[in-house]
């Protein structure tokens, strides 16, 4: 092995050779090769963050987040094994039970990454006892509603607002089970920030926290992102188009 991997270097993903370019992570290389690994806090436009752990794989027998693990030639990566899928399933079930996710009446249903990943992993119930946290909405902004019930703390809005919009409208606060999304304003209200509807932060939430007001359910069932095709296909196509 050399310090700079060959341009035609590959690793093994569930028995298949996956080529990668220097600097790519396992997740990036897999997606580029048309192989799906479930993920939530990763977004191709941002530096990986590695917090949700849904993208966990086994690399040479050791588990790690594929979104932050660099691809190395000859590595043996396991992803679609029952053990790994089971682990991911539990992580997703945790997320479902930590927040309030009522898919049948959620505007994001069909467009929601959490829901789509849940389907992919065969999650049919929350499994854990739901915590039903009390998280009041922030409807103060004239154009945008924040429904904190659905936040999975992926920090994508935080990253988008800081790095792209240069505004820092959002932040995470607290630790452990008390960790939650806050709005950076003295009043704590979204209306008192400089968020604008065309900000990047408006379009990155993988669930349904940050919503444009008065547009709910305009898109019918059948026409939503994951209605016709599973996330497995949508995610790799998105990568191809990018």
């Amino acid at each position, binding site marked *: 092995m050399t310090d700079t991997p060959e341009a035609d270097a590959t690793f093994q993903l569930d028995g298949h050779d996956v080529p990668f370019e220097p600097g790519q992570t396992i997740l990036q290389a897999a997606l580029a090769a048309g192989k799906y690994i479930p993920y939530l806090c990763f977004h191709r436009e941002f530096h990986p963050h590695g917090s949700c752990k849904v993208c966990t794989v086994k690399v040479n027998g050791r588990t790690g987040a594929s979104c932050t693990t660099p691809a190395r030639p000859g590595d043996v990566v396991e992803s679609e094994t029952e053990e790994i899928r089971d682990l991911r399933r539990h992580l997703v079930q945790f997320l479902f039970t930590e927040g309030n996710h009522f898919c049948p*009446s959620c505007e994001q249903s069909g467009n929601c990454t959490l829901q789509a990943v849940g389907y992919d992993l065969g999650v049919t119930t929350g499994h854990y006892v739901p915590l039903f946290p009390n998280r009041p909405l922030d409807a103060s902004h004239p154009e945008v*509603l924040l429904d904190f019930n659905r936040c999975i703390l992926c920090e994508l809005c935080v990253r988008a607002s800081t790095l792209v919009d240069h505004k820092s409208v959002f932040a995470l606060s607290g630790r452990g089970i008390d960790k939650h999304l806050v709005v950076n304003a003295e009043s704590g209200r979204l209306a008192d920030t400089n968020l604008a509807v065309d900000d990047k932060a408006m379009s990155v939430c993988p669930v349904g926290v940050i919503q444009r007001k008065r547009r709910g*359910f*305009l898109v019918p069932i*059948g026409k939503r992102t994951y209605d016709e095709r599973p996330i497995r296909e949508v995610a790799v196509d998105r990568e191809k188009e990018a």
Partner: protein
Amino acid sequence: MTSSLEKAKDPTGLRRVVIEPVSRVEGHGKVTILLDAANKVHQVRLHIVEFRGFERFIQGRPYWEVPVMVQRLCGICPVSHHLAASKALDRVVGAHTLTPTADRVRRLMHYGQILQSHALHFYHLSSPDLLLGFESEVARRNVVGVLAAYPELAKQGVMLRKFGQEVIRITAGKRVHGTGSIPGGVNKAVSEAERDELQRALPDVIAWARTGVALVTELFAKDRATYERFGTVRSNILSLVGRDGKLDLYDGVLRARDADGKILFDGVDVQGYDALIKENVRSWSYMKFPFLTALGPEAGWYKVGPLARIQNCDSLGTPLADAARDELLAVTPGKLVHAPLAFHWARMIELLHSAEVIERLLADPALLGTDLVASGPRGTMGVGVIEAPRGTLIHHYEVDEQDLVTMCNLIVSTTHNNQAMNEAIREVARQYLDGHEPTEGLLNHIEVAIRAFDPCLSCATHALGKMPLEVEILDAEGALVERLVREGEHLG
């Protein structure tokens, strides 16, 4: 008009029979009967623990979620709640007139819902009593028994329901918990292919609906004395009627008649419903007792639902159903029919009417249009009223300037019929139970009367043709004397 059996003069020493339908999901109802040593009936009550507090889940939510959320109120008529909420919120978004496409798509959805709900109720839940007998062998008094004895009829019931569900799927996006109707309109029109698919099925649907009407007409004719008398109590009636006085289950104005058929009020804008109707409470039931304000709680209670509305309107406006209605009205010429069992007849007439309306809607090019949503000056409150399968359904919301719901009031069809159902079972108790040891078959008479109103209790909707029953006989001190449990068969 409230009958004496509501409250026993002196309950001491009376034995209490409890009919308790055990419910797993949305509704729970029970009947209690007080009898003396000679089995003379002293008190009969239908108690219902309903969807209490659902309003709580709506308050604080953004208004655009409401039409989808409220569908969780009911397992078999979610579409009615979906549309009633949309209609109320149309006013909040200033859509006082919908686009023609939105109007037709919503109507189609609604009539599909009426058709499937009426089919479910008659063929699955009530036909076992009517075809096999109120006291027929309990093990066979269910849809399986009907399937064995009347296979073709049972099949038609299934097919009718399927058609209604297909209409819902096409218009709402899903067979249950669709999202098709939104404040201000709809999110999809009907495609040509979808319309053609429905049109192809229609001739059969209309034929089956006619068979259903003929069957109930015949049942009534064969045992007219029973059908006319069974649990019959006179009352006022209330429903929406179209602005032209014809039956309109989707939209219109409020009209009420007294028990003789004389108009009490007419042409009332639904936005003013709360001045017309007040609700009473009784200590023994969670369900309220609405009454017409002008007449007061004693005389002001009323019936809603198929039997009320087909008599309340001037005509149905579709030829086959109107001819069938004429036959029903001929039972007591010039007077209102009040017999609970005539609800079944009226329901089947409405089923036929719905099929005819669907035929008309499918021929309307506006159904395929592209202009889906209307809007106008923002409002802060809205009332939406619709004639749901079981009767008048009222949704009322207030929305603040942040777009969140601050107030929600729902009056569901079953609540309107609360007093009427109570009076009907009291009458049945007088007619059949008085002086007899209460057997399962006799107690089923009580259920037959309740079922005629098609109340929206989950147990009534999930059990095949009978409610799961638990009967407890207690002595005067409340000690258990006997307990009979009859399991319901669930549709799954």
